């Protein structure tokens, strides 16, 4: 009578790069690759989010499929034959990385340098970057008004950083339009719907309603968008400021897991500490209670422990 319901799980067997692997039914090709120890590059994929298939960097070849398939979203099937390292896969990944690398600032995106090297991507061959857009220009871009480049410079999404509050900044020069922030803010977790994708084509961008500054938007500053951003486009203001000052030094930081002191839910916090000060707060994506999410108090409300008199 009083038992925890158990889901009967079936498994499927597939072949990846010549090796057989068995995974539970419903697992993706990416899950299967990881189970086998062959991780694939991903940018728009998030462990806690619904796959959106935006970045295409995880594509693989599936026998019998006309097109390459995104491994992060495609479910593994019995008898599937997958290849992750063919010329076609490598070429496609190279193009994706080059297009992103030539148009977006990927300097704070972890792992990307390694992938660029692995896939011999050379974003610089598209020419020097075009001048950045003036403040607000991309926010006002109308669909259909985008002009093709001159062929000499690489079109970019470069623009000034948006700093409109003390919690976090938006550096859309680093945005690859992976939609993860939109999903975290939307139905996947927070359900606040403060942001969405506006515009079309190369002018598409993440935006609040009418591109309002965050304090005038629906944003509740949970920072769950920062938690899933794969490139550092969304960043704690504390981290941004320290990077600007040249004082951000991850090698000098410790990460300690503890429990939030606000309310009784028991959210797990990872305190990133440098020089005896908390510089940012995250939560483990695999944590049973938070799944990486926090609220404004948990993520930003720590300052009281370090408003120390000798520092004022």
């Amino acid at each position, binding site marked *: *009578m*009083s*038992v*925890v*319901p158990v889901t009967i799980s079936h498994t499927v067997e597939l072949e990846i790069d010549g090796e057989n692997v068995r995974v539970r039914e419903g697992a993706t090709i990416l899950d299967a690759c990881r189970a086998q120890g062959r991780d694939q590059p991903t940018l728009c994929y998030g462990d806690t989010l619904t796959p959106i298939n935006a970045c295409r960097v995880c594509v693989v070849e599936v026998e019998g499929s006309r097109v390459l398939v995104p491994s992060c979203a495609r479910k593994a099937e019995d008898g599937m034959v997958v290849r992750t390292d063919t010329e076609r896969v490598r070429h496609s990944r190279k193009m994706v990385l080059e297009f992103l690398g030539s148009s977006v600032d990927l300097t704070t995106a972890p792992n990307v340098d390694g992938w660029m090297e692995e896939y011999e991507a050379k974003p610089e061959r598209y020419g020097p970057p075009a001048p950045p857009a003036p403040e607000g220009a991309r926010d006002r871009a109308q669909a259909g008004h985008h002009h093709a480049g001159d062929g000499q410079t690489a079109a970019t999404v470069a623009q000034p950083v948006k700093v409109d*509050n*003390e*919690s976090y900044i938006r550096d859309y020069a680093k945005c690859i339009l992976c939609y993860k922030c939109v999903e975290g803010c939307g*139905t996947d*977790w*927070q*359900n606040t719907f403060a942001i969405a994708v506006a515009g079309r084509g190369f002018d598409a961008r993440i935006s609040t309603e009418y591109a309002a500054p*965050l*304090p005038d938007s629906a*944003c*509740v*500053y*949970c920072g769950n968008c920062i938690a899933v951003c794969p490139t550092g486009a969304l960043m704690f203001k504390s981290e941004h400021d320290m990077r600007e000052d040249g004082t951000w030094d991850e090698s000098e930081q*410790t990460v*300690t*897991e*503890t*429990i*939030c*002191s*606000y*309310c*009784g*839910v*028991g*959210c*797990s916090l990872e*305190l990133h*500490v440098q020089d*005896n*000060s*908390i510089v940012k707060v995250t939560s483990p994506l695999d*944590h*049973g*209670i*938070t*799944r990486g*999410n*926090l*609220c*404004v*108090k*948990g993520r*930003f*409300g*720590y*300052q*009281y*422990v*370090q*408003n*120390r*008199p*000798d520092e004022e």
Partner: protein
Amino acid sequence: MFGAGGGTSSYREVEETDLIFLWGSNARETHPIFFHRVLKAVNNGARLFVVDPRRTGSAQWADTWLGLDVGSDVALSNAMARVIIHAGLHNREFIDRATTGFEEYAASVEPYTLERAAHDTGIPADAIRESALAYARADRAMICWTLGITEHHNAVDNVFALINLALLTGHVGRYGSGLNPLRGQNNVQGGGDMGAIPNKLPGFQDVESNHEARARFEAAWNTTIQPKYGWHLTQMFEAMERGELRSLYVVGENPAQSEADAAHTLHLLEGLDHLVVQDIFLTRTAELADVVLPASVSWCEAEGTVTNSERRVQCVRKALDPPGQARDDIEIVVEIARRMGYEWSYDGPEDVWTELRSLSPMHRGMTYPRLAELGGIQWPCWDEQHEGELFLHARLWDEPKASGEPAPFNVVVNVEPVDELSDEFPIRLTTGRRLDSYNTGVQSGGYSSPLRRGESLDLSPEDAASLAVAEGERVRVSSRRGSVEAPVRIDSSLRPGLAFMTLHFPDEVETNILTIDATDPKSGTAEFKASAIRVDKLDVPAAEQQTAAGANVAAR
């Protein structure tokens, strides 16, 4: 409930339930990460009912918002019970197997007709009936509550009223069905678990009736424990009033600003012979103290455990060195004991925890390494093979009869808030939290929140119109205990006759000047949720008002 003071269910069950009652809880703002689970459930098709006088952010996600008059919770729950019983939807089999007192309970709810409930609660009769039927018919259903249930003079009765509904329908002791108080502070649950309540030793072992447990503690501590309940907070203040309590040691509380009827509280604290305050800040209370013991911040400058709302014991860890002379709470207590002539030897928090495990059977299996490895463990955890309990009271479903003590129905009657509305004080003031702030703001005031807009008197558009006050206009707010000034904010989530304030900005607006210290006799919780107020335009100079407020205090 039924012998253990903790929520029955796990958060993960919320996602898999069919129906959720959020009763006196604005979890969207006060427990945002718990509310993510509610949203998952809603997006999976679960029905959400929100019982709240205000149409809160949580209520906006509800299938049905039951906007009751403040303090009419028992009228609503008893009427729901009557609907369920009359429809024959009560779980006869479960009631026979696992409960006592059904007949008396059924008779007691009989007078709570829909007509009467609609009158007493202000909720349309149809909405009450539909909600009751939906709750009874759901395969799995949860009731979750917060301070909207417990910050009343009849707090315990309110909780009983909700427990009664679960017993009536068998919505407890099963996966996905349960009764869950969402704790307002990170270690309210742990404080109770650890015996920081006047009637229990750690592990909910009764100090009066559990002789075996008392003997165990006496042997371990080499001392005699009086088989007598102590005072809870409210009783302490009553004892101060009688002059029986002359010295007070306050650890991590700010009663000078957090207690109802603040002027009176201040007067009592000032009258003490000796006040010791151990805190991370020089709070308003600490300013009154004879001795202040600066403490380290428990969740990031010290090690230890806390317990959350799903009974999960979790480790907190030190990430920062405390400033100046601040010291770990355990260290301070041990040092005080030493100066009183007791040589306690504790080698850090794990040592304290190991002692706790030896004395509290429900924590026995929770070693420090297991707590870290399993991401916390939910009590009870009887031994080191036990992974802890996902949900409580499965025993109530044992065949053919519930094992252990049956769960009793408790007859409760609707009693209106103590602070009556009158011609002089015609508006009901209720209090609560906002998303980005916390309690008296001691902690949350430290960061720069883009959402913060300071204290205000939130009024319905109708009341603002009839009082002829505009958004942002400063007004005088008075109750039978005192007056404060606050700017008006017009809030369409409030019904006419209902006003809202927070307790977050006591240095700006001391809301607790207004609140009443009428308390629940069993829990000691004050009725922060229901004061009667009057709102006046500021025609009178401020100095005169303060004198009036002062006179009120002096008259007590």
